[in-house]
């Protein structure tokens, strides 16, 4: 059996590749395929010759020179239309700029964290003071009878627990003195636990 191969259709397949072949822009594999084909194909060799002629004719066109020099004052244009040279330089050194930005972000985050931490401590101290004040008020009978007795029971329990644990309470003979001593002691313990020291004026100092 004889298989008839249509040479024209083969060439049509290769034709669009011949320009890239001539320009050296084909992949290694395609280059080998086209090389093998043109070895036996006069039609494609003719086309390559035409490509060569067209390219030579275009390359042969005269290189035109600007008839007039540009009259732009570049110095003044640089000053008015571009960003300062130090900005360009900084922008060019992208890595330094990124490092700087990262450092600023870290500083801001660290600052925010510290501020949040001192706020939360402030509020916890304020809560314990408020509770103690309520107890003092209750002790003085400003609360209702039921509430006052309830607070009193809680305070007595805490005093008893403290005594069992070896905590001494000065002025515990008098009712109000006992409660104040308890409050002062508890407040001091809570502050120490949080790393807060108070001076005699009642000012807080935070240990970091």
């Amino acid at each position, binding site marked *: 059996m004889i298989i008839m191969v249509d040479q024209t259709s083969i060439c049509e397949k290769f034709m669009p590749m*011949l320009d*890239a072949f001539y320009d050296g822009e084909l992949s290694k594999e395609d280059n080998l395929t086209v090389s093998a084909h043109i070895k036996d194909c006069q039609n494609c060799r003719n086309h390559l010759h035409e490509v060569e002629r067209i390219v030579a004719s*275009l390359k042969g066109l005269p290189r035109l020179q600007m*008839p007039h020099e540009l009259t732009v004052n570049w110095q003044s244009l640089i000053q008015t239309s*571009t960003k300062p040279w130090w900005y360009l330089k900084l922008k060019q050194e992208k890595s330094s700029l990124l490092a700087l930005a990262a450092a600023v972000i870290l500083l801001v985050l660290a600052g925010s964290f510290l501020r949040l931490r001192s706020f939360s401590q402030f509020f916890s101290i304020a809560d314990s003071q408020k509770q103690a004040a309520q107890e003092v008020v209750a002790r003085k009978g400003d609360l209702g009878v039921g509430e006052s007795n309830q607070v009193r029971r809680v305070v007595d329990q805490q005093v008893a627990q403290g005594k069992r644990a070896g905590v001494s309470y000065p002025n515990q003979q008098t009712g109000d003195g006992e409660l104040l001593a308890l409050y002062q002691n508890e407040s001091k313990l809570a502050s120490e636990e949080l790393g807060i020291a108070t001076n005699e004026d009642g000012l807080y100092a935070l240990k970091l």
Partner: protein
Amino acid sequence: MELTDVDIIDNFRATGQARYFQSLVSRYQHRIYNAAFRMIGDTQEAEEVVQETFIKVLQNLEKFRNQATFAAWMFRIAHNICIDILRSRQRKGGLQMMSFDPQSTQEQIDQAYLQLSQVSQVADLEPGPAQKIEHIEQQEMIASSLGQLPESQRIVLVLHDIEGFSYQEIAEIVGDNVGTIRSRLHYGRLKMKELLAPYFQNNTVAAYSG
């Protein structure tokens, strides 16, 4: 040793001195002018393209990040300006007949004829007036054929066959993929072959440097 484009740009960025930018202008102004003229076919507009290109290069130099060669990056700007001019022409009143031959060719031909009448027919290594006439006519024919190509094919032929950019660089300049560039180049050359066929049948395009 001559500084590379990147060296010049680095120096300009570091110092802001106009002389560095001026050296880029000196290096590329004629090349851009030549390409712009071959694309749009008008000397005055080609000069405007050069000026506008360098102003835009100056304004956008901070955006150049060596992702392409500086020449390709700058030609992209010039190409976009040329496209704007071509679009503007189409809006104003359809296609204009552009000569695509910048030098007053008729004057050159006249000059060559004058030489032909004056010079005796002595064998000479230099091309004679007759050859010069033939050469000038040949260039006029080629420039005219190039001007008749569809805009997209003409631009690719100018950038590749005249300016020597690679397919990849042209793809970056015109904003298309390499396959499209390859196709435009192929069909552009086929069209050139068709337009120049009558001329090629009678003459050979000789390498001529006169």
